[in-house]
C-alpha cells in the first residue's frame, strides 16, 4: 500500500495543474446540473443559478478540502506557497534585498563562529576510545590549582583505582636527533607504555611499547622509540627497514620499534609531536631519578574510564585515593585529585571566550530576526487587502498563517544560502586571526556539521521572525480593509503598533547587553596592553637550546655561559643572557618554598614561580633591580647558595622587613648534590614582571643562578641595538661554532611573544565589538522604523494638530515619544539582563569588574543618544509637514 500511496503522491504533484482544472470542471458541471434541476422545478434560470450556488457553499473552500484529501497535498501546497512567496519577493525587490542581506550576515556569522567552536570545543577526539578519555590532575586541595602528578603517585593511582580500565602518564619533551646531516630539534613525548592501547590506536608498522619497557631496568640498554608518520617520511624516506635500527637522540641510543599512522597525534597540541619514547628515560639515577621522587610533579595522567563508569564516580574514587595517599606520604599532604573529560581539558582557556562569542553572535542573529519581523510587519500593511480577499473566498486562518510562514521560510532559506557563502569565506579569516596555538584550530573547515547547522538556524530564524507577523497579518476583518476609505488609524494598526513596540524593546535590550559585554572587554583589553610589563620587550631576540649530553663533562652553566659570551661578541648585540622560563610564554615552573625560621612540612609550604637565570638577565630584559645586587660569576656551587626574589614575594613574606640577607628554601633546582635543597640567601629584589595573560596580581617569584641550579634547556635572550630579527643568522652561526650538533629552536622576539599573548583577548574584543556595533545599527533601524510607521499612521492627526496651531516642538515630542518609550524600556531591561549575565565574562576580564559602573553608564548613555537620533529624524519630517498636504493625504 505505501508504495501505491507514494506513487499517487508523486503523480498528483506532477499533474497538479490537471487535477485543479478537472476539479473546477467537475464542480461547474455539478452546479449547472443542480441549476438545471431547479429550472425544471419552475424557477427562472437566474434564480436557479443563484440557489444552486448558495446550496453548493463557498467554492474555494470545497476545492481546498478536496485538494487536502489528495495524496501529497501538504507537500504540494508547500511548494505552491513557496513559489508564491518567491514571486511576492520578486515583486518587492527592495524589501527582499535588505532582508536577505541582513539575514545572510547574521546566519553567516553565526555559522562561522559555530564551526570554530564545533571543531575546537565540541568535536570528539580522533581516537577510538575518545568518549571515555579523561585527564587526571593532581591538585592542591585548598585552591584546586595544579595539574601534573608524580610517577609514584601515578603508579598508586593506577593500582588502587577501580573506575579506570587503563591509566597512562606522559610529558612532552624537546629532543635533538643527530643524524647523518645536521642535528634537528624535535618535539616529542615521554609516555608510559599503556598510552597507545589506552587511546585505542595501533602503530602503522612495528609495535607499541611493552609494559616492561616502562621499568627502570630497561634504562640500562637502548630505549625504544616510536616515530610519527611525518618524521618517518621526512628523515627516513618512509623506509620500513627503519624498524630495529638504532638512532641517536639526545646523545643516547634508541631502537625504533614502530611508526604511528598518518595524522596521529597525542598529546594534541599546536606543535606536532614527532616521536614517543617510554618513561624509562626518566628512571636513571637510582633514588634521584625523576620517577622515584614522590615530590616531583611533572607528569600528565590520562585515564580510560570503564564503559559503565562516569566522570563523577571516577573523581569521587580518586579523591578517596588521594586522601589516603596524603596520609601515607608527607609529600602528598594537602593534595587531591581532579578528573576532567579530555575533550574539555583540551579546549582549556579558549573554551570560555569561544562560547561567549557564540552566545554573542546568536544575539546578533536574534536582532536580525527582530528586524526582519518588523520589515514583514510593514509589508503586511500593504497586503491587508490581499489577506482580506483570501479570507473572503474561504481561506481559513491556519491556511493564511501557513502561507505567510512559508514565505518567511523562503526568505530565510535564501538568506541562509547566501549566509553559507559568508560563513565559508570568513572561515579562512577567523583561522588566520585566532591564536595559532589553539589546539585543533587547523581542523576548522567546511563539513557536514556546518551545513546542517546553517540549515537548522535558517529554518529556525524563518519561523522566529515569521511567526508574529503571520499571526498578526492573518487576523483580518473581512470588510475593513476592502472598503475604499479604510482608515490608517484603524484598530489593526494599533495592534501592530504594539507589536512593533515590543520588537523594539527586545532588540534594544539585546543590543545593550552585547554592547555592555563589548565595552567591558574593550576596557579590559586597554588595561591589558597598557599594563606595566616590568621589562622592555623591544629589540630582544630569544631562542631555546638544549645542553648536549655529550658535553657531560662540562656543566650546563659552562655550556650556556659560552653561548652567551659568544653571542655578546656579535656586533649590534648590547647584552645577552639566559633563563629557564621566559615571561609571557605561560610556562612558569612552580616550586614550594620554605621560609627561614618557619619550618613547615612539605605539603603545606607556600609556592612561588621558580626560574633559573645567568648573570645579566635582568639587565638584558631591563627588569628593574630595586634592592641588592645581581648574580655574578662568583655565585656558584663553591659559594653561598643565593636567590633574587621579586617585589611581590618580598611584600608577602617579608612585609616591613629588609628582605636582603633573609633566607628561603625553594624545593627544586639543587646543584649541591644529593639531599635536601639548600636554604638560599636573598641578595636582591627585582620589580614585578607580567607573566602575560589576565592574572591581575603578580605571583611571588624566586630566581636562582644557573651555576647553582643546573638546567638542561634554556632560553637565550639578547638585546640588540637594531632590528632583533636581523640577528637570527648570525646567532645560528655562533651556536653552530660552539657545537654543530646543537640546534636552536623557538626563535622569536619578545615582541612576538607579547603580541601572541594578546591575540586571543584582542580577537575576542574585536569580534564582540563588531557584533555590538552591528547590533547597535540594527536596533537603531528598528527604532527608526517604528517612529516612521507611527508618523505614517498619524499623518492626518498631526496635520489637524498643526492646523489648529499646536507648536511644532510639542508635535515633535509626541511622535518621538512613540519610539523613545520602547527604546528606553529596552535599555533598562538590557542593563538588567547584562547585570546578571556579564558574570560569564569574569574569567576574561583584566582589572575590570563584570559590573563596572562606568561601562554600564557609558553604554546606556550611548544607546539613549543614538536612539534619540533615530527617533528625531523621522519625527522632525512629520512635524514639518504642510497641514494641507497631510489632510489631503487620505
Amino acid at each position: 500500500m505505501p508504495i501505491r500511496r507514494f506513487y499517487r503522491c508523486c503523480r498528483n504533484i506532477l499533474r497538479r495543474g490537471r487535477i485543479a482544472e478537472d476539479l473546477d470542471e467537475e464542480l461547474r458541471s455539478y452546479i449547472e446540473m443542480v441549476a438545471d434541476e431547479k429550472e425544471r422545478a419552475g424557477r427562472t434560470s437566474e434564480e436557479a443559478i443563484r440557489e444552486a450556488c448558495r446550496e453548493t457553499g463557498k467554492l474555494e473552500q470545497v476545492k481546498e478540502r478536496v485538494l487536502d484529501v489528495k495524496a501529497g497535498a501538504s507537500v504540494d501546497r508547500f511548494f505552491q506557497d513557496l513559489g508564491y512567496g518567491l514571486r511576492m519577493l520578486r515583486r518587492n525587490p527592495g524589501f527582499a534585498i535588505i532582508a536577505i542581506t541582513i539575514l545572510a550576515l547574521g546566519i553567516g556569522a553565526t555559522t562561522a563562529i559555530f564551526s570554530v567552536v564545533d571543531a575546537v570545543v565540541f568535536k570528539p577526539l580522533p581516537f577510538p576510545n575518545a568518549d571515555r578519555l579523561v585527564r587526571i590532575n593532581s591538585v592542591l586541595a585548598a585552591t584546586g590549582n595544579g595539574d601534573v602528578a608524580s610517577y609514584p603517585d601515578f603508579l598508586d593511582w593506577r593500582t588502587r583505582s577501580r573506575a579506570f580500565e587503563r591509566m597512562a602518564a606522559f610529558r612532552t619533551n624537546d629532543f635533538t636527533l643527530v643524524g647523518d646531516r645536521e642535528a634537528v630539534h624535535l618535539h616529542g613525548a615521554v609516555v608510559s607504555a599503556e598510552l597507545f592501547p589506552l587511546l585505542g590506536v595501533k602503530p602503522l608498522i612495528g609495535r607499541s611499547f611493552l609494559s616492561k619497557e616502562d621499568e627502570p631496568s630497561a634504562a640500562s640498554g637502548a630505549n625504544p622509540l616510536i616515530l610519527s608518520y611525518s618524521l618517518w617520511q621526512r628523515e627516513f624516506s618512509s623506509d620500513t627497514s627503519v624498524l630495529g635500527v638504532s638512532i641517536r637522540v639526545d646523545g643516547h641510543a634508541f631502537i625504533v620499534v614502530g611508526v604511528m599512522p598518518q595524522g596521529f597525534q597525542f598529546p594534541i597540541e599546536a606543535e606536532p609531536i614527532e616521536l614517543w619514547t617510554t618513561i624509562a628515560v626518566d628512571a636513571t639515577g637510582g633514588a634521584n631519578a625523576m620517577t622515584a621522587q614522590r615530590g616531583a610533579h611533572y607528569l600528565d595522567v590520562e585515564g580510560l574510564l570503564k564503559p559503565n563508569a562516569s566522570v563523577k564516580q571516577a573523581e569521587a574514587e580518586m579523591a578517596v585515593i588521594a586522601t589516603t595517599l596524603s596520609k601515607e606520604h608527607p609529600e602528598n599532604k594537602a593534595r587531591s585529585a581532579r578528573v576532567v573529560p579530555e575533550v574539555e581539558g583540551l579546549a582549556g582557556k579558549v573554551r570560555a571566550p569561544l562560547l561567549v562569542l557564540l552566545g554573542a553572535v546568536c544575539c546578533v542573529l536574534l536582532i536580525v530576526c527582530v528586524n526582519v519581523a518588523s520589515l514583514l510587519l510593514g509589508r503586511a500593511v500593504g497586503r491587508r487587502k490581499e489577506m482580506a480577499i483570501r479570507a473572503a473566498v474561504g481561506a481559513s486562518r491556519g491556511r493564511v498563517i501557513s502561507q505567510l510562514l512559508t514565505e518567511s521560510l523562503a526568505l530565510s532559506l535564501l538568506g541562509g544560502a547566501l549566509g553559507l557563502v559568508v560563513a565559508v569565506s570568513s572561515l579562512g579569516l577567523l583561522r588566520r586571526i585566532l591564536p595559532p596555538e589553539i589546539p585543533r584550530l587547523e581542523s576548522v573547515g567546511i563539513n557536514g556539521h556546518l551545513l546542517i547547522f546553517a540549515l537548522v538556524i535558517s529554518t529556525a530564524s524563518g519561523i522566529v521572525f515569521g511567526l508574529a507577523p503571520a499571526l498578526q497579518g492573518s487576523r483580518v476583518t473581512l470588510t475593513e480593509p476592502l472598503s475604499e476609505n479604510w482608515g490608517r488609524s484603524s484598530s489593526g494598526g494599533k495592534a501592530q503598533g504594539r507589536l512593533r513596540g515590543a520588537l523594539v524593546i527586545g532588540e534594544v535590550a539585546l543590543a545593550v547587553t552585547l554592547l555592555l559585554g563589548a565595552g567591558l572587554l574593550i576596557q579590559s583589553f586597554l588595561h591589558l596592553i597598557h599594563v606595566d610589563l616590568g621589562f622592555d620587550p623591544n629589540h630582544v631576540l630569544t631562542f631555546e637550546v638544549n645542553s648536549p649530553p655529550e658535553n657531560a663533562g662540562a656543566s650546563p652553566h659552562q655550556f650556556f655561559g659560552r653561548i652567551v659570551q659568544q653571542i655578546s661578541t656579535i656586533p649590534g648585540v648590547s647584552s645577552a643572557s639566559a633563563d629557564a622560563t621566559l615571561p609571557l610564554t605561560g610556562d612558569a615552573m612552580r616550586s614550594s618554598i620554605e621560609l627561614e625560621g618557619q619550618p613547615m612540612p612539605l605539603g603545606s609550604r607556600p609556592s612561588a614561580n621558580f626560574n633559573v637565570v645567568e648573570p645579566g638577565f635582568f639587565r638584558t630584559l631591563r627588569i628593574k633591580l630595586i634592592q641588592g645586587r645581581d648574580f655574578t660569576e662568583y655565585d656558584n656551587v663553591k659559594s653561598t647558595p643565593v636567590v633574587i626574589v621579586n617585589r611581590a614575594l618580598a611584600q608577602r613574606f617579608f612585609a616591613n622587613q629588609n628582605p636582603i640577607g633573609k633566607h628561603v628554601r625553594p624545593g627544586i633546582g639543587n646543584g649541591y648534590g644529593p639531599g635536601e635543597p639548600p636554604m638560599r640567601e636573598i641578595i636582591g629584589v627585582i620589580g614585578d614582571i607580567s607573566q602575560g595573560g589576565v592574572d591581575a596580581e603578580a605571583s611571588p617569584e624566586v630566581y636562582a643562578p644557573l651555576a647553582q641550579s643546573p638546567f638542561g634547556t634554556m632560553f637565550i635572550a639578547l638585546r640588540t641595538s637594531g632590528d632583533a630579527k636581523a640577528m637570527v643568522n648570525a646567532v645560528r652561526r655562533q651556536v653552530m661554532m660552539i657545537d654543530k650538533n646543537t640546534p636552536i629552536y623557538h626563535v622569536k622576539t619578545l615582541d612576538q611573544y607579547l603580541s601572541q599573548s594578546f591575540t586571543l583577548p584582542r580577537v575576542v574584543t574585536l569580534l564582540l565589538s563588531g557584533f555590538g556595533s552591528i547590533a547597535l545599527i540594527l536596533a537603531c533601524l528598528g527604532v527608526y522604523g517604528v517612529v516612521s510607521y507611527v508618523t505614517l499612521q498619524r499623518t492626518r492627526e498631526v496635520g489637524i494638530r498643526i492646523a489648529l496651531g499646536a507648536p511644532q516642538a510639542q508635535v515633535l515630542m509626541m511622535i518621538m515619544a512613540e519610539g523613545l518609550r520602547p527604546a528606553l524600556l529596552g535599555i533598562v531591561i538590557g542593563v538588567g539582563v547584562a547585570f546578571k549575565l556579564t558574570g560569564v565574562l569574569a574569567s576574561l576580564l583584566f582589572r575590570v569588574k563584570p559590573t563596572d559602573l562606568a561601562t554600564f553608564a557609558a553604554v546606556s548613555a550611548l544607546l539613549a543618544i543614538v536612539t534619540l537620533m533615530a527617533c528625531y529624524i523621522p519625527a522632525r519630517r512629520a512635524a514639518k509637514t504642510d497641514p494641507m498636504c497631510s489632510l489631503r493625504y487620505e
Partner: protein
Amino acid sequence: MSIAQSGGNPRRDLLQGTLALLVLKALALEEMHGMGISRRIAQITNGTFEVKAGSLFPALHRMEEAGWLTSFWGEAETNRRAKFYRLTKLGRRQLETETEQWQRISLAIASALRAT
C-alpha cells in the same frame, strides 16, 4: 439531517464512515456523477441524508485516493459533460465488509437499546 463535515467534531469519524458506506451503496448498481450520487443517497434514505457538495466531493476524492472508486468523464442525461464514478473491485469488497460491520453494530446497538 445533513452530514456536515466540520473539523474537531467527535462524531466526524462515524459520520464519515457512514457517508462512505452510503456512497459505496449508491454506486453498487451503476456508475454515477456527483449530483446523481447525492440525489440517490437522499432517495434510498428516504430523504434522511442530504449530502452537500462540501462533504460529497472531498469524500469522493478521498475514496478515489484509497482505490475504492475510479472516475471518468462522460455524458449526463441533460447532455452535460460530467465526471462519473465507478466502484472498483477493492470498493466492492469494502462495501461488503462495511455492510457486514454496520449490520453487526446496528443489531448490537438495537438490542442494547431494547434491553431494560
